[in-house]
């Protein structure tokens, strides 16, 4: 559908004074999916924010071809507004023609009148996914897309990712859950932690 490429070479990121990981390299072309794993606090979110271009990595290079869509734990929806109105803002920003499709697949129609403040974790996550879908971008960076979701929603979201990838998009998913996606590449961030840090831990 669209040209897409996401390349990282020799990437290193730090949080404060601590080096989180280094020498991370990968190359994702159209239709590729990468599952990033690692224990809590290892830097998955930091990696995703660097890849999105919001922050600058400590070292290394990132090359992106195509626009980036980011999904993280923050819903970017006005808490006081009903969900329908809060989503409408992003639909207008993204000039989305038919938002009902995305909302239907994510089971949001019944929630449109509910203020965002009263939505549960899983419902907010589904709403954030709807924002991701209002905009057709080739590169998806998903930070814990499945956390808080029920079984049916997990299946729906997995299907959305599969559809996106088979349409020629790229998906990079940081998740503790197993992902049922074909040809899924894996990246364990624990393999890239600097050695002194490991010794300190022992």
């Amino acid at each position: 559908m669209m040209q897409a490429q996401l390349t990282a070479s020799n990437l290193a990121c730090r949080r404060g004074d601590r080096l989180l990981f280094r020498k991370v390299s990968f190359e994702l072309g159209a239709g590729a999916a990468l599952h990033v794993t690692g224990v809590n606090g290892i830097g998955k979110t930091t990696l995703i924010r660097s890849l999105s271009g919001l922050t600058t990595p400590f070292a290394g290079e990132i090359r992106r071809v195509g626009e980036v869509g980011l999904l993280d734990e923050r819903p970017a929806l006005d808490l006081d507004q009903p969900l329908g109105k809060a989503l409408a803002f992003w639909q207008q920003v993204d000039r989305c023609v038919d938002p009902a499709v995305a909302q239907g697949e994510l089971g949001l129609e019944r929630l449109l009148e509910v203020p965002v403040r009263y939505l549960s974790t899983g419902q907010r996550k589904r709403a954030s996914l709807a924002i991701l879908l209002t905009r057709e971008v080739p590169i998806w960076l998903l930070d814990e897309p499945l956390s808080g979701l029920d079984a049916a929603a997990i299946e729906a979201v997995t299907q959305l990712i599969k559809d996106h990838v088979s349409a020629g998009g790229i998906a990079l998913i940081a998740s503790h859950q197993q992902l049922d996606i074909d040809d899924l590449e894996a990246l364990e961030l624990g393999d890239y932690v600097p050695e002194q840090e490991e010794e300190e831990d022992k």
Partner: protein
Amino acid sequence: MIGTLLKRDLAKFFPFAGGGTSLPVMFFVAIAMLYPFAVGPDPNILSRTGGGVVWIAALLAAILPLEKLVAQDIELGFFDQLRLRGLTEEMMMAMRLVAHWLSFGPPLIIATLPAAALLAIDGPTLYLLLLGLLAGTPGLAAIGLVIAAITASLRTGAALSGLLLIPLSLPILIFGAGALARQEAANIGIVAAISLGLVAMAPFAAGAAIKAAREV
């Protein structure tokens, strides 16, 4: 995209609209109401000092909206999502400045009319007061926005922003209230010039603060 953003910001901050607060205006009128109780009802004292009280009330009222002005949208990831859609932080902050001023400047100017009645302010002074507030409130909004952006990632940001706004807004207060004492409209030109400089600078300073807040 910019129009949509401005509409959303206004809905969030304008008093009596969904998420906005009318607290600054109430606070402003409350000070004007309390002052005669504190110094006594002598119209001479009131009309001589009333203009200055209105200026102080406006300055303090400008502090109230700062807490929600930037911090909440950083927490919700709003600016990040807009950035990924190609909008610059400077543009986001310019829109926020417009929305912030519209939400507290004009309401304060309108509320000055009942405040002037309570403080027995006469016609020529009221004219200078309204003109001065029209020239000064954009500057107050600009200072407020920059402070809100800088303190957004601090835990005690809300308390700090009040303390920071007061010294920075002194020039506006001195020239704005000074115009009343001397009954001289020329001073308001200086207020307008200060405001203009602040308004021109604020989106860049606030935008830089938001970018810096991402890099922890």
